């Protein structure tokens, strides 16, 4: 009994400690996010629509796919690499999963697994090539990006694969209680990713390889295995995002996920992860994803022309990274 309460207490203190640290590390972008939310809460146009439960869940639902990708992307970028293939994997895995239901009448669970699997396989392929050769991740994933996109078009013939089964919508458009399903999945994925990065040996190895891969080799870390794992994980996350998105859109679309890799990279970089590898936290990525999500939502609520939305988004990304640069330069 005593032992149990002691463990419980230490768990709470650990949690509090990591929370304070998270606040400290991400103070800049957290403030940016809060300011953004504040503006949208008091602006006369959005005042009544922004801070409603419905809209908050709506934002979270929208950013879930981006944050799935960003979870994998955080690891990949900390490793010193990049994964450009994730956007196309969204399209391919979504089409395959949707096709499994509508074309072959396979059970939903099998369809979902197939979608995840296709993501995992592409990720594993990326990982295999990147870990066994010295070809840069940028090039390898650029190639698989095109391959996956092409396969999605080949499979669908260019038109969406519609799914009429009602249960299909559960993952993307459904609810558990009042909470949208993708938000539940997102929370689970964030916890798993955070545990891997902060509490496992693999997590340490990712930071080690990203920080100094030569030193990692001398440390006896199996660098190839680490690279393989990270890329496989990123692929799996993209597969998940694809399935969830296809569920939300009632169809697998070969055009889905177009440019999604860039939004994921933006979330990671705004979240403070260094593109040169070795440094970054999933906690920052969450904020980065939220900023981009809230911004998209706010611009929509404000009825900003979608062409201009790109310009604003770009400017905000640059601003966020610039503040981070100023902060680091002082340190």
């Amino acid at each position, binding site marked *: 009994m005593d032992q149990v309460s002691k463990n419980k207490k230490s768990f709470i203190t650990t949690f509090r400690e990591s929370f304070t640290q998270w606040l400290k590390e991400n103070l800049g972008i957290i403030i940016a996010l809060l300011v953004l939310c504040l503006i949208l809460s008091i602006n006369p146009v959005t005042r009544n629509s922004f801070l409603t439960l419905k809209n908050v869940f709506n934002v979270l639902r929208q950013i879930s796919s981006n944050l799935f990708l960003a979870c994998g992307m955080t690891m990949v970028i900390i490793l010193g690499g990049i994964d450009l293939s994730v956007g196309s994997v969204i399209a391919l895995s979504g089409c395959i999963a949707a096709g499994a239901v509508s074309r072959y009448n396979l059970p939903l669970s099998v369809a979902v697994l197939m979608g995840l699997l296709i993501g995992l396989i592409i990720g594993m392929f990326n990982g295999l090539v990147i870990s066994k050769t010295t070809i840069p991740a940028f090039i390898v994933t650029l190639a698989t990006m095109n391959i996956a996109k092409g396969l999605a078009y080949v499979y669908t013939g260019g038109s969406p694969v519609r799914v009429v089964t009602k249960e299909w919508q559960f993952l993307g458009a459904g609810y558990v209680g009042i909470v949208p399903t993708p938000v539940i999945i997102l929370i689970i994925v964030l916890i798993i990713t955070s545990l891997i990065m902060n509490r496992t040996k693999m997590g340490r190895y990712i930071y080690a390889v990203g920080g100094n891969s030569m030193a990692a080799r*001398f440390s*006896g870390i199996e660098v190839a295995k680490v690279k393989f794992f990270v890329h496989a994980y990123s692929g799996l996350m993209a597969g998940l995002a694809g399935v969830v998105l296809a569920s939300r859109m009632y169809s697998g679309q070969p055009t889905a996920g177009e440019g999604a890799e860039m939004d994921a990279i933006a979330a990671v970089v705004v979240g403070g992860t260094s593109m040169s590898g070795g440094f970054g936290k999933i906690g920052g990525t969450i904020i980065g994803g939220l900023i981009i999500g809230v911004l998209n939502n706010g611009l929509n609520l404000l009825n900003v022309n979608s062409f201009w939305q790109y310009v604003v988004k770009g400017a905000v990304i640059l601003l966020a990274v610039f503040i981070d640069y100023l902060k680091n330069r002082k340190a």
Partner: protein
Amino acid sequence: MESKVLLKMKNIHKSFPGVHALKAVDFELKAGEVHALLGENGAGKSTLIKVLGGIYTPDEGEIYIEGEKVEIKDVITAQKCGISIIHQELVLVPYMTVGENIFLGREPMKGKFVDRAKLHEEAQKLLDAYGMDIDAKTLVGKLPIAKQQMVEIVKAISYQSKILVMDEPTSSISDKEVSFLFDTMRTLTAKGVGIIYISHKMSELEEICDRVTVMRDGTYIATEVVRETTKDRLISMMVGRDLKNYYTRDYGNQGEVILKCENVADNNMVKGAGFELRKGEILGFAGLVGAGRSELMKCIFGLTKNYTGDIYLEGKKVNIKSPAEAIRHGIALVPEDRKVEGLYHIQSVKFNSTIEVLNKFIRFIFVDKNKEEQIAQNYIDMMSTKTPSTKQAVGKLSGGNQQKIMIGRWLATSPKILILDEPTRGVDVGAKSEIYSIINKLAKEGMSIIMISSELPEILNMSDRIYVMCDGKIAGCLGHEEATQEKIMKLAAK
């Protein structure tokens, strides 16, 4: 003969937030002299050099060049004043030829285009004038480090520099190359160039330097004529106390053979080397750079995939294919180049100290943070590493403390065999002495230690036996009583 004063730095102050890096430093350089700048890491040598080179502007103080007061605002002013700095890390462009590097930014032109023929011709003339056996048309990246350094020197001279600063130029070149470097330096001083020479190697001072200025904690301590001072005196000025027993070594106490190698080769640098290591022994490995010492150890540590030959551990034949396997066999390797092969710079002292022993405190997703802290602290204490906390980024520590972290990291694995590759390179005198006494203690406790070193005094004073390597093979083995610098050099240079 009293030669004229080239450079005078007076009362130089420089502060950074939180650090008073230079406090009233004076320095003087005469024409034709080699003037050593001596001090432990963090003593302010590099800050002083950066002030001279126009990278930092001093907060206070005056600089005179040939009697004229100058203000060195930036790197270009420094160059105009005839100051050239050869940094420890070479700054040549590897994908350009030697000639292109020498004339970078001031290429001879033919109309609007670079006159490559003339460029290479001019460069070759310069190289030949200093007796350097280098083709101006080779790519710099293809030259060994020592020759790249020569190119840097020629580049500096080609700017008509009168004041040449060399920051630890011998830290990565072999003894033979060092003597060529010294010859070049003598040619330069004979022409009236003044050289400021930064080095941790005391033995080099006697050979090449005329005067020496000692700095400590950002202050000027003294300037002495090298011929009239002693090594012990200089060391005590550097560390601010007398270092009794610079080397600590208790001989004896060796057990049976723990590691035996026969005819090991890696199809490259190692061409059939064999040796025996006993329990509780410190085995020195001497030889020139490129003799294959580090490469031989890489075979033993599983870093070389396709080596041939036999390795026996405690009598049993083993086939080590990866560092992970070597670690399981109780072998540890502290690599030669800690910056490139060892440290995770932006990570904490704790991360760096415990990366080899994660199994001791991480089970699946359960991390025992207290144990982690305890392991890190334990080896900080054992190595007497100076760090503000275990959270400090390791890249911000001094070279000596970084090396202590590296050694501590591997001691945490409780190895039976500890391979140290250049354990005191870029480490200041005080930390060096501490590292020697720790190595001695470990051997006394029964650990078997292999120490590769290019510093002969270190090898001679620490080793039970010394293997000398030459061209990928063992050239000979000397016991510690019979070994001398001459004998080692004779074997190494064959």
